[in-house]
């Protein structure tokens, strides 16, 4: 989903009718994009065969830890 002031405005409305000023929305687009960029950097890694930080533990009957 593209990150634009309009998209953020729509999400805020769904949050219960919240609002931000145009200037806050413009800042927010950059901030949200920087968060998403950090995540996209993970595409550089081959994570297919790695275990997760959350693993199902057999001795707990499969309880996630």
């Amino acid at each position, binding site marked *: 989903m593209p990150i634009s002031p309009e998209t953020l405005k729509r999400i805020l409305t769904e*949050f219960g*009718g*919240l609002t931000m000023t145009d200037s806050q929305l413009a800042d927010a687009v950059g901030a949200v994009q*920087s968060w998403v960029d950090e995540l996209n*950097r993970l595409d550089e890694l081959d*994570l297919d065969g*790695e275990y*997760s930080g959350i693993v199902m533990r057999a001795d707990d009957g499969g309880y996630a830890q």
Partner: protein
Amino acid sequence: MSSSNSLLHMSITEIAPMIQTKKVSPVEITQSAIIQAEKLSYLNTFITPMFDYAMDQAKKREKAIGNGEYFGPLDGIPIGIKDNIEVAGVRSTAGTKALNENIASVDAHVVTKLKQAGAIILGKENLHELAAGGRSNNPHYGFVKNPWDIEKIPGGSSGGSGANVAACITFASLGTDIGGSVRFPAHCCGVVGMKQTFGRASQRGLMLTSYDGDHISPITRTVADSAVVLQSYVGHDIHDPTTVKLPLPDFSKDIGTDLEGIKIGVPLNHYFDVIDDEVEVKVRQSISALEELGATVVDIKLPYTEYAGALWVLMASEMSVTAQKLLKNHGHGVSPDLLVGLLATQFILARDYIKAHKLQRLIKEGFAEAFSKVDAIATPTAPLPAINIDADVVNIKGVEYSLRLTRDEIMGRATHLSNRTGLPSISVPCGFSDGMPVGLQLIGRPFAESTLYKIADAYESSASSSRILAELAK
């Protein structure tokens, strides 16, 4: 009888024997602490002071101690509680206007334990709104000010807690640390902040958080005090599945012992990559001091830490769920700073969330490998000292970093990995940069808090900058 101010300047381990032997009374100390709090009320450290309650409790403890009922080193000691930790019958706002009239019905588990230890709660402390930032510039309850310079931030999110301890208003305060929120204020205010291993302490009664990586943790003026406070409230809680059933060691047992045989790792990557020159000098000098005290210092590398910024997704995703109802019902009382983080979570795909967890595993394994060679890892607590309250950007080595509507990644850069790995970490004052305190962070093996206390105490005992008080605390 000692003068009121000199009593407040003491550590818990110094004043507790005086209370036990009735040379000092809980009423006397509590009165002094309240006078100090009122004198320094412009620091905005409390959201809800509990001074009448504190005096009632102090009188009860004085009478009980007089009758031979002494509960231990926290008995009769004034402390503070961050306002996102519930205290029964008291307003608990988590720093947001949306919860301005929220009264907690039960005590957080840790608060119950502290009351049982005889501690006197002075009040609920100011914080960064919903504990979701490092500046404590709370738009609803006032900006918290740093006792070392009231134009500077006290750090956050436990800013009121750090400032109270540094200003000698409380002897200890309980903060919460989800990305550095106890250690960063400790760094900014020149006090000691310990984040214990994840699983050591109950989170029951901690409001609106991510249970994956948050910790209720102590801020104190000395390392020995930190061990005493932590000892009083940790342990397995049958109602909190994140706590572990492990025997509880005596956290103070190795304090005062020498550092022969201790190996300390210094990371070649991540922690010193972005850092103010003067802060780096202070931290490296403190590492040299540890070597002079008998420790062996070796270089280490921590793989995958260059991707650490992606781990924000783990905390933010869970917070987006815990805060969902609050936003729906009271969202208009939440500041734009906070909304940005919650907006960002709306762009996280399930596959990104899983990838972040896989990265978390790789980083944990990197630390485990390092801890097969060293007992502790020494780093800065933060890349820069406390910044101006109104700063929009910071400049580190000629590079500008924006502070507007961000997740405060610069200030939490050296601390947040310990939350995502669960490793215990302590910040201890190691000097001054531009007149403001800075901290040395020591990271330890899981459940090895005693080792961290041993190393941090050895450093504290040898450092000339230890136990220096801010001028307005005197």
